[in-house]
């Protein structure tokens, strides 16, 4: 396999003659960065313009009447009150159901479950749940909660559906937060005579709290913003009264927006924009809070990646 031919071992060409090649590479790099930055500015710009457009379209309709009235055929009287109240009911109920289930599931997976294949399978499937499109959860809600459990198109059915949808978010962020708690905390707690349950509830969970809260806020923001699953289970866009019990039919902000935006009239599009302002205000609040809490926790732990 040793060749008999004389093969010239390549020498790099004289350094000076490499300068043009290097100059070309540098120019390419600069061009790439320029294009990338221009592209980013354009996209951010587009988003900003779109958001501003919505704000401008909706502000004229954002009156106190708007916030306190039910929807109506007459745009000047229409409001988001049932939708707003419905959304709040929804988040509260969804939170009440998904937070305990999610956190306790994560506690089980990280602190109690034996490290075997079953555990990995459980984690895998919880994570796979987040790959299921939102509307499929709507179909699930329709099948199981609305029909099978005969809950009808009630807030309860809606919350149950949304709880399932946001559950993976809470479980995964809680699992990650628990994993970051240093072993020394647990050992110190046990060494002081705590039982496992006490160690978990009094040491691990408090230490993991920023990560857990951050995940919960994201989950609630998600629950607030989704419309598709609720459309499927029958949340209506025209609900004239504020719900008074969990079994009442309901509507939420996102669906109200959908309903109004489906009307070709300019006024209703404006109402939809106003409702979007309200929705975005709450969603941004939750999301920004989530990000801030998470970033501060990372910083306190000692270092941004």
């Amino acid at each position, binding site marked *: 396999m040793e060749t008999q031919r004389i093969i010239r071992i390549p020498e790099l060409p004289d350094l000076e003659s490499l300068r043009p090649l290097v100059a070309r590479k540098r120019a390419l790099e600069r061009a790439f960065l320029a294009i990338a930055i221009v592209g980013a500015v354009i996209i951010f710009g587009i988003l900003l313009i779109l958001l501003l457009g919505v704000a401008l379209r909706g502000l004229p309709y954002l009156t106190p009447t708007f916030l306190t009235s039910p929807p109506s055929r007459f745009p000047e009287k229409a409001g988001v009150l049932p939708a707003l109240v419905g959304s709040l009911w929804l988040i509260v109920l969804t939170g009440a159901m998904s937070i305990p289930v999610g956190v306790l599931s994560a506690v089980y997976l990280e602190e109690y479950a034996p490290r075997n294949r079953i555990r990995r399978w459980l984690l895998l499937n919880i994570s796979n749940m987040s790959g299921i499109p939102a509307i499929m959860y709507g179909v699930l809600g329709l099948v199981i909660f609305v029909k099978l459990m005969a809950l009808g198109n009630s807030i309860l059915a809606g919350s149950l559906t949304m709880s399932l949808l946001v559950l993976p978010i809470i479980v995964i962020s809680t699992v990650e937060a628990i994993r970051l708690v240093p072993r020394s905390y647990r050992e110190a707690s046990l060494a002081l005579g705590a*039982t496992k349950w006490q160690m978990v509830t009094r040491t691990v969970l408090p230490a993991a709290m920023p990560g857990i809260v951050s995940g919960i806020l994201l989950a609630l923001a998600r629950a607030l913003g989704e419309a598709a699953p609720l459309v499927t289970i029958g949340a209506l866009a025209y609900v004239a009264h504020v719900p008074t019990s969990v079994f009442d039919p309901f509507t939420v902000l996102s669906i109200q927006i959908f309903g109004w935006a489906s009307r070709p009239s300019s006024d209703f599009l404006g109402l939809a924009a106003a409702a979007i302002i309200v929705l975005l205000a709450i969603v941004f609040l939750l999301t*920004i809070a989530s990000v801030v809490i998470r970033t501060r926790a990372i910083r306190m732990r000692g270092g941004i990646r």
Partner: protein
Amino acid sequence: MGVTQTRRSPVTIAAERLIESLLPLFVLLPLLLIAIFLAFLFTNAFHFFQQVSLREFLLEPNWHPLIQPPRYGIAPLVAGTLLTSAIALLVAVPLGLIAAIVLSEFAPLRVRNVIKPILDVLAGIPSIVYGYFALVFVTPLLQKVFPTIEIFNALSAGIVMGIMIIPLVTSLSEESMASVPTLVKEAALALGATRLETTFKVTIPYALSGIIASFLIATGRAVGETMIVTMAAGATPRITLNPLEGVQTLTAYIVQVSLGETALGTTGYYSLYAVGLVLFVLSFGLSLLGRWVARWKRSE
């Protein structure tokens, strides 16, 4: 942390043990519900296929359940989904990847720590807001450029979906590239490579499976998106490659059936589940593939 106590009431101990023993149920409950759901999905879809032959479902080029005679060919809905998703990916993949490259390989740490949280916040914008964008701003704009464009069209929905997905592609790809060991990148630099060369000849090949996974997950997201396409792409099932026309996606059809009053037990009623099944297989399959690809390289 003070938890020392000399004696604990047997009630407390029993209560703790009880909760601990119930913990596995919390995990199993959601999975059980999903399993029940899948069973129903398959069962109802099965009812559908008792009334509509698989042949018609797969080969019939028309889908109109309400116009007599009804036709149940899934192809138009799938075509609608694929068209809008393809447009979305055409927007999101190049832009998202380039943004990820700049963030992970070029941007100083300070810039990264500002941009990444902003991306996270942008990723939280509900899709219905994007749907409104498409309907109220993008379509009128496109009408100026393409006068023949329909009011409901795939292009508007696709573009806006693409913008929505960019943060997802960027954050997943950026994670992959940032986890390439610094030592490997430095080896390339030490051999005389520029930052750009290092990125394309070393970092991206190294992180390739993660990057591909991010594309697959983004595709799954696009396929499963509902509100944007419902509001902007229309409700006209048709097989077309023309983005200026209106189409109906799998997801939009499900919404349409949900909003309507279809009688129980009819083919129309069961069609929701058949379409749901196809959607589930497509979207979930893509996400699953994405996660599998990501894990595959990591184990190497």
